[in-house]
C-alpha cells in the first residue's frame, strides 16, 4: 500500500470534475420538485443528453454545440413527461420510471456507431494569474466552462428561488397548488417550464459525462448518476447549497476510493465502490434531521376544477 501516490491537489481538482454531472442534474430536479413535480426520469434524461451531446459534438466538432444539443435533448424528453403528467394528468411516479426506461433504450439506439470514438476535447479555461496559483490554481481555476456554469447555477437557483418574485411563485405552486390557482397563478404552465428546465439541466449533466468526464460513449454510461441526483435533492432538504455540498461529497469520495483502490489499500474493492453512496447518504440524512420538509404538493396531480 502506498498512500503517498495520492496527490491531494489532483484529488481535489478531479473531485470538482467528478461532481459536476450529478450537481447539474440535481439542481434541475431541485427546481422541478420545488414546483411540486416529482420527475423520476432524471436518469433517462441524463443519458439522452449524454448521447445527444456526444453525437452532435462529434459531428460538428464543437463540444459547445454538443452541450446545447444535450440540453435540448434532455428538455425534449422532459417535454414528453410534462405532456403526460401535466396535460394528460398521468401518474408522476409511473411516468417518471417509464421516462428512465425510455431514455435508456432511446440512447442505446441513437448511440449505435458512436462507440469507441473520441469526442472533440473541451478546452479548459486559463485564467491569468489565478490559474497559476499553487494548489488553488489547479483545484479551482483550471477547469472547463461547464464547471463554472454549474457553480454559477447553484448561486442562481438559490437567488431566484429565495430572492425573486418568480421564485416565490414557483415555491407557492409547489407548496399549495390549489391556493396558487385560486390566486390566479398558472400552475400548469409554471410546472411545465420547471420540468423543461430540469430536463435541460439533466441533459447537460449527462453530456458532461460523455464529453468531459469519461470521455466517450458507452451504453448505460450514466450508471445510476440520475438516481443519485434524485436522492441528493431529497437528502439536501430541497436546498441548493446543500445539493452542492452533497455533490462534492459524493464526487470526492468516488475519486478518493478510486485512488485508494489504485494505491492497493487492504479494503475489499466492493466496500470501496459502495462507500460514496453510503457516506453521502449517511451525511445528508444526518443533516436533513432539521425541520425542513418536502414541498407540500410534491407529486400530487393538479386539476383546475378541484
Amino acid at each position, binding site marked *: 500500500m502506498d498512500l503517498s501516490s495520492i496527490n491531494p491537489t489532483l484529488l481535489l481538482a478531479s473531485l470538482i470534475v467528478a461532481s459536476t454531472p450529478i450537481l447539474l442534474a440535481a439542481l434541475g430536479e431541485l427546481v422541478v420538485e420545488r414546483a411540486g413535480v416529482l420527475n423520476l426520469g432524471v436518469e433517462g434524461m441524463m443519458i439522452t443528453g449524454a448521447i445527444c451531446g456526444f453525437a452532435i459534438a462529434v459531428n460538428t466538432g464543437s463540444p459547445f454545440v454538443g452541450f446545447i444539443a444535450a440540453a435540448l435533448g434532455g428538455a425534449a424528453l422532459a417535454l414528453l413527461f410534462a405532456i403526460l403528467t401535466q396535460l394528460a394528468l398521468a401518474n408522476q411516479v409511473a411516468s417518471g420510471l417509464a421516462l428512465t426506461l425510455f431514455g435508456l433504450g432511446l440512447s442505446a439506439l441513437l448511440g449505435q456507431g458512436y462507440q469507441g470514438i473520441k469526442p472533440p476535447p473541451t478546452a479548459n479555461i486559463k485564467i491569468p494569474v489565478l490559474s497559476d496559483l499553487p494548489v488553488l490554481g489547479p483545484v479551482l481555476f483550471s477547469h472547463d466552462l461547464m464547471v463554472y456554469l454549474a457553480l454559477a447555477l447553484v448561486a442562481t437557483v438559490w437567488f431566484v428561488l429565495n430572492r425573486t*418574485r418568480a421564485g*416565490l*411563485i414557483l*415555491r*407557492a405552486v409547489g*407548496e*399549495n397548488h*390549489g*391556493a*396558487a390557482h*385560486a*390566486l*390566479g*397563478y398558472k400552475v400548469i404552465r409554471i410546472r411545465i417550464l420547471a420540468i423543461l428546465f430540469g430536463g435541460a439541466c439533466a441533459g447537460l449533466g449527462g453530456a458532461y459525462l460523455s464529453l468531459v468526464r469519461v470521455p466517450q460513449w458507452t451504453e448505460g454510461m450514466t450508471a445510476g448518476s440520475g438516481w443519485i441526483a434524485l436522492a441528493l435533492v431529497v437528502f439536501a432538504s430541497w436546498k441548493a447549497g446543500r445539493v452542492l455540498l452533497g455533490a462534492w461529497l459524493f464526487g470526492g469520495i468516488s475519486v478518493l476510493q478510486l485512488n485508494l483502490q489504485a494505491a492497493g489499500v487492504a479494503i475489499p474493492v466492493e466496500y470501496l465502490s459502495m462507500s460514496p453512496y453510503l457516506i453521502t447518504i449517511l451525511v445528508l440524512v444526518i443533516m436533513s434531521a432539521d*425541520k425542513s*420538509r418536502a*414541498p*407540500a404538493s410534491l407529486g400530487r396531480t393538479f386539476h383546475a376544477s378541484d
Partner: protein
Amino acid sequence: MTEPLLRLSGLTKAYPGVVANDDVSFDIQAGEVHALLGENGAGKSTLVKMIYGLVAPDRGFMQMHGEAFSPKEPREARTAGVAMVFQHFSLFEALSVAENVALGMETPPPMRQLSERIRDVSNSYGLPLDPSRTVGDLSAGERQRVEIIRCLLQDPRLLIMDEPTSVLTPQEVEILFETLRKLTSEGVAILYISHKLEEIRRLCDQATILRHGRKVGTCVPSETSARDMAEMMVGNSFATPARADHRAGDVILELRNLSVPATSTFGISLKDINLSLRVGEILGIGGVAGNGQDELLAALSGEVRSARDAILLQDKPIGKTDPTARRAMGLLAAPEERLGHAAAPDMSLTENALLTGLTRQNLHWHGVLKWSAARNFAESIIVKFDVRTPSANVAARALSGGNLQKFVIGREIMQRPSVFVVNQPTWGVDAAAAAAIRQALLDLASNGAAVLCISQDLDELLEISDRFAALNEGRLSDIKPASALTVEEIGLMMGGAHGMEVAHDPA
C-alpha cells in the same frame, strides 16, 4: 338610490349535469355588508368565483360603477378592486406571512417595505401580525388575519368573505366585526357568506338567498328571524331538535390525566385531560379548530394509544387497546374529516359500512365477508337516516357532504354504541341535515348511551349538550352545566381573544 358598486344581471353558469347558477341578479351598494345565503350546493361559491374571475359566466353580465365588468382572471378582478378572503386553501404553510401577502398582490413592494406596511395596516385594523413568522406555526385565527391583511393592502372596493368566522372564538368574531364595520364606514362593500344566521342578523344590511342556483328571495337580516331565513334557504320548514327529559346515570367513560404527545409537525399535544362521561348524557367539547380536537378523538378511538390507565371504559383500562377491540367493547367514534378518515372516498357505501361494522354487526364468517348482510346493513342506514343516494353501491365520494355525514354518523349509531365520540357532526352540512343529525345524537343519549360531542359550532353544543367544556392548546377547561352558560363565559373558556385588539384609528 345611487348607482350600485356592483350589479349582477342574469348570471347563469352550468356545469355538466347541474346548473350552478340560474339567472341570478342583485346589486351590492358601496358601504354595505351584503349576505349571500344558501345551503351547500346552492351555488354561492360558483357565484363568488364569477365575481373573482375564476369562472366565466355562460350568460348574463356584471357592471361595476355602471361599467361592464367581466374579469377573465383573478388578476383583473383584483385590479378592479375586488378582494377575496377564502374559506380554505389559500395560504402557503411553509412560507412566511410577508411572502403569503406578496403572492396575493399584483406589484408587491420589496420585502422590507412590505413588512413595514403589513405592520402598519395590521395595527390600524387591530389585527397584530409578525410578517416574518411562518404561516404553518400560526393559529387558525391568525391565519385569517393574514388573508384579511392581504386583501386590505390592495385598497379593495369590494371584499368577499367566505365563512370567515368558522375558525374564530366569540371574542375574535367581535373584533372581526369591528374591523369590517370600520371598512364599510370607509365605503368598502362586503359580500359575506356564512351559515351562521345569528351573526348575519347582527352584521349584514342586506341578504340575498340562493336555492338550487336560483335567487329565491331577499331580506333585511336584522328584521328577519334566523328561523325564517333558514326556511327560505331550505325551501320548507323542518323540525327543531327536541330534547327528551332524562337523568344522567353511572359513569361509563373516564379519562385520568390523559396526556398524548403531538404526532405531527403542526399538531397539538394533549395535556392532563380529566373527565368522566355518564350514561344518558351528552358532553359537549368546544374550542377553536386546532386546539387538540382531532388528537382527543384519535386518543379515544384508539388510533393513538396512551398510558394504559388514562382511559377507563366501564372501569376497564383501555389506553393501550386497539380501535377494533374498543369497538367490540362499545366505544365507537366518528372523526371530523368525512372523506379519507370517516369514509374511504372510492369505496362503495356497502364497503364503507363493512369497514367499521364488521365485528359488531357480525358481517363476516371466520374472515369471509357476508356481502348480502353488509348490503342490508348499508341499506338500513340509508333508510333510517334518510341518506339521499341512488343505491348502496355508489362510491362515498359521490355523495354530497350532508348525505355522507348522515351516513357515517348513522353507521355508528346503528351499531348501538354504549359510548359514542363524534367530532364536528354537522360541519359543512345544511340546516335540515344538521337538525336530523342533532336529533339522532339526542335520541342516542336518551336511549341510554353516552355521547361525547366535539364541535366548533357553539350554537350546536348549547342546543344538545348537558355539560360543556372547551379545549385550548391541548388542555381541557373545567366542565360546566351547559344550560347556565353565556356566550361570553364560553369564549373565555375557549381561551379569549388570542391577543387580538379592537380596531382603532391611527392617531
